[in-house]
């Protein structure tokens, strides 16, 4: 055993993709093939889904199989509300496939007829990602008709129908998700989104004050403090720990966090170019830059998000 231990310890870790999920059966056949595993099968797929999500997040992957793994999971356990909730949020948000999230949730609408979760999250995807307020309102209202729907679902239905400002409704949804989940990853995603929305709210507030200042004074401010107290009450705290700065070239206030993101994206695109020159092709995934020694590590996204890497370029 000691020899085995020493031998295995000497084996270097293998750089790998999450391709095993490519062999996961898809479609309705999965219900038949996983049946002999009994009650353990949904747990295996749930753990595989979490592991896959974590791996892709760390390595800056494309979440190629995210839809498939949650599709399989909700087929073999159609009453698993947490899978619909977590799956739809990560597929729409980080997987950037809101339509796929809706497809899975619509099946849940039929197969899990007593739960308010599938219609609520269809409304959520329509409201936040697709900005279709009429459809969002329809599904929020449907969620209110199912037992156990909390009070805020009624408020959101009203918000969507009245086309209340997107940001206000979005903050409400994310804060409720934050309060009502034990899932740490979901909590982090909700907090990140709330902070982003608050940051945009503050920038809008500052830039409105700036426009009024320029209109009335006929000049540009030299420093943000010139706006206080006539045009803005105070300088808000930047939610990601950065600061607000007046950028004369853009004639607007900007967040230093956003500037940092722009810098990192420019750096990564430059390194992607280096990679292409060295190997003759663009990497499949961002972590190949590290694996092939082009960079030492991928700088963490200042907003805690995943870099949007498509076709050899990182975009915002």
């Amino acid at each position: 055993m000691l020899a085995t231990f020493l031998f295995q310890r000497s084996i270097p870790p293998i750089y790998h993709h999450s391709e095993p999920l490519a062999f996961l059966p898809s479609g309705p056949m999965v219900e038949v093939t996983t049946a002999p595993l009994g009650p353990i099968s949904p747990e295996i797929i749930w753990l595989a889904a979490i592991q896959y999500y974590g791996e892709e997040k760390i390595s800056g992957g494309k979440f190629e199989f995210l839809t498939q793994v949650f599709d399989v999971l909700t087929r073999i356990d159609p009453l698993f509300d947490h899978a619909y909730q977590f799956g739809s949020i990560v597929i729409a948000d980080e997987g950037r496939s809101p339509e796929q999230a809706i497809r899975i949730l619509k099946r849940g609408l039929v197969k899990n007829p007593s739960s308010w979760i599938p219609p609520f999250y269809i409304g959520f995807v329509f409201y936040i990602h697709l900005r279709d307020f009429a459809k969002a309102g329809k599904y929020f209202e449907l969620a209110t008709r199912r037992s156990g729907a909390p009070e805020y679902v009624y408020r959101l239905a009203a918000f969507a129908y009245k086309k209340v400002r997107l940001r206000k409704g979005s903050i409400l949804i994310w804060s409720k998700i934050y309060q009502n989940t034990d899932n740490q990853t979901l909590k982090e995603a909700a907090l990140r989104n709330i902070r982003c929305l608050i940051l945009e709210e503050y920038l809008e507030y500052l830039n409105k004050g700036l426009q009024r200042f320029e209109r009335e004074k006929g000049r540009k401010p030299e420093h943000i403090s010139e706006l206080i107290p006539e045009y803005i009450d105070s300088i808000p705290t930047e939610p990601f720990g950065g600061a607000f700065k007046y950028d004369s070239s853009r004639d607007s206030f900007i967040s230093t966090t956003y500037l940092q993101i722009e810098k990192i994206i420019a750096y990564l695109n430059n390194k992607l170019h280096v990679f292409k020159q060295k190997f003759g092709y663009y990497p499949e995934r961002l972590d190949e830059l590290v694996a092939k020694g082009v960079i030492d590590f991928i700088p963490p996204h200042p907003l805690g998000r995943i870099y949007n890497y498509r076709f050899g370029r990182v975009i915002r």
Partner: protein
Amino acid sequence: MREVILNSYREAIRDRVLLVVLAFGVAMIFSSLIIGPLTLGEEIRLAKDIGLGSILFFGLLIILFIGNRVLYRELNEKTCYLILTRPITRFQFIAGKAIGLFLTILVTSLILGIIFISYISLLTGSLQITAFLAVIGVIFQLTMLVGIVILAATFLNPFLGSLFTIFVYIFGQMIPRAILLAKFYKHLAIARILSIFHYIFPDLTYLDFRELLIYNNPIPLERILFGFSYAICYSLVMVLVAGLIFERKDL
């Protein structure tokens, strides 16, 4: 016959394989303590599913390891000749072996079941009454497999008997879902063929009370009673067929 039952039970319970399988079963029930924190808030659900799955899986292992050898050993070591010289029919001998094996499964499943229920009751902070029914459901599922393994033991060696039992278990779990799938895709001919197999293979889904355990969704009393009577009737038929085969067997 009482002697056959007790002998068969004693022999099985003394088997060291049983202890090993039980130890793994207990370890697997508690494995959710290690895997739980990785499930993003689904620790209880994982503990319930893994625990219930363990009782079924390790019960199946006991049936495969011990059930198949129960009859083979008697025939191989020719001890059955001694028993059959007494006033006992071959059918009673088979029935005794089946009941002995059933008692072994009952005792081991109850041990695992009590550990499982206590564990999830501690995790949730309340006595999980629904888990009792789920465990009883699994015991009835295993009862059907006892019938299958006794039937296999009358005409197959232990290795082929195990393969036969695994095959029946897998198909028994798959066929009900495959029928629904065939009907969904309007392959009615395939659905009809599968329905014939459905009458032969045991349908373990009648005794699957996971929905009640995990989601607290009530299960109608008729379905529960039907499931129990179905399992008893199926096992009896299997033992009856095994008895008939053994009666005609050239010893």
